[in-house]
């Protein structure tokens, strides 16, 4: 609805709200005011005229070129078709015909109409903004916890050890040493959890060296502690979850099998560190195989 006197706004279809061709253009040409607008070739770069102002397509181009001449800065691409407009247009102050100074309105190329353009561009900027906010938040989560020390003291104790020698049914079909261990774990993991820890993957691993292999590591037991679960570990007389098979017969008479509790910190976003708890226990394995008893 028009509230001010002046030329009616022009819709993209070329018709005004009142349903007639813009009178000002034809009338101005007829009265001979200024140069005939028809001479300004706009080289087919069809644009939706800016809403809320007069038809500024041609005049804004003059604005570009006036600034170019004054500033002499960045080279503005010369638009073909406007070359022949003559000097008068360049020096004219940029105004609408009714005397209201023109406001250069940003144009949108990929827009169907003024209304559709607003919805799309709003959705676009909303999406881009929320994406960048989420990215910043994720980065903040990562950087605030990236250099934290995730180690806590752990107390381990082994109460019973047994050794057998059987065919390794989990893989290579050779007779290998099979160890059985009963252990206790005491640890308080509360200080590890913070806003960026999703879960802790705890695992108890046995490390030892044998004649065949310089280093052996076998994971005997694991547990997943999610954020929110009870972080205090008080486990007694636990049996191993996985079979303690050696690659060969290296457990028999092994003096030094070291058990350590480690954890893999899984963050909401960021680094996945592997941390070993401070505290381990070294146990010797028996020299003989247990044949009669079962574990």
């Amino acid at each position, binding site marked *: 609805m028009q509230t001010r006197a002046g030329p009616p706004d022009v819709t993209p279809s070329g018709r005004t709200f009142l349903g007639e061709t813009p009178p000002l253009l034809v009338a101005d040409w007829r009265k001979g005011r200024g140069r005939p607008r028809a001479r300004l070739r706009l080289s087919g770069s069809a644009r939706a005229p800016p809403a809320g102002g007069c038809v500024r397509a041609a005049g804004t181009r003059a604005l570009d070129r006036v600034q170019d001449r004054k500033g002499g800065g960045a080279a503005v691409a010369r638009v073909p078709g406007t070359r022949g407009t003559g000097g008068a247009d360049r020096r004219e102050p940029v105004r609408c015909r009714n005397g209201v100074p023109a406001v250069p309105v940003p144009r949108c190329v990929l827009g169907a109409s003024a209304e559709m353009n607003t919805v799309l561009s709003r959705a676009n900027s909303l999406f881009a903004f929320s994406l960048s906010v989420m990215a910043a938040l994720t980065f903040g989560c990562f950087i605030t916890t990236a250099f934290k020390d995730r180690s806590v003291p752990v107390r381990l104790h082994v109460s019973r050890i047994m050794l057998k020698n059987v065919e390794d049914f989990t893989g290579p079909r050779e007779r290998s040493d099979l160890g059985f261990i009963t252990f206790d774990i005491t640890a308080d993991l509360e200080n590890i959890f913070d806003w960026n820890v999703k879960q802790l993957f705890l695992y108890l691993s046995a490390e030892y060296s044998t004649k065949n292999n*310089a280093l052996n590591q076998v994971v005997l037991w694991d547990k997943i502690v999610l954020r929110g679960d009870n972080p205090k570990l008080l486990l007694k007389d636990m049996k191993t979850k996985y079979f303690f098979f050696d690659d060969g017969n290296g457990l028999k008479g092994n003096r030094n099998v070291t058990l350590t509790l480690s954890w893999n910190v899984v963050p909401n976003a960021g680094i996945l560190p592997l941390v070993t708890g401070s505290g381990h226990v070294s146990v010797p394995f028996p020299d003989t195989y247990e044949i009669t008893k079962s574990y």
Partner: protein
Amino acid sequence: MVRASTVGAHLPAPGFDIFGDLRKMNKRQLYYQVLNFAMIVSSALMIWKGLIVLTGSESPIVVVLSGSMEPAFHRGDLLFLTYFREDPIRAGEIVVFKVEGRDIPIVHRVIKVHEKDNGDIKFLTTGDNNEVDDRGLYKEGQNWLEKKDVVGRARGFLPYVGMVTIIMNDYPKFKYALLAVMGASVLLKRES
């Protein structure tokens, strides 16, 4: 009236006008557009290859496809891998490996390591969410993995972002459409 129709002709018909910028350009500007497009493509390629060199892994960013490592990694999560060959494989590490003869890499955890004096390592992996170890996934008769099968170690984690890649893999038409739209917007829009 001839004049009126000429004046009216510059007002656009409703509809998309994606070639508007393109029409205004002279030859030099067009060359610039193409060069701009080529710059973007080669920058992306350079960044990717640079990451490969920096991390030492042939595939520095991977997307988790299955749920075998839940609840740590879900389908659609992004993993950042590095592979510095001086660091030995140790139990508890999350490694990405390729089974001989298959091209899809697998993300699992190392549970057994046996290393010899000369540095040869053989190791066994399993998924956190799996009941059994990975020997069923290895080649027929293969019981252990070796260093040469490893693509990288998982060092960083980013949730959900990889869903885009999964969608593009499951619906290739979407991938082509996305690439076409991005390519067109770079080629046809003039940078002001």
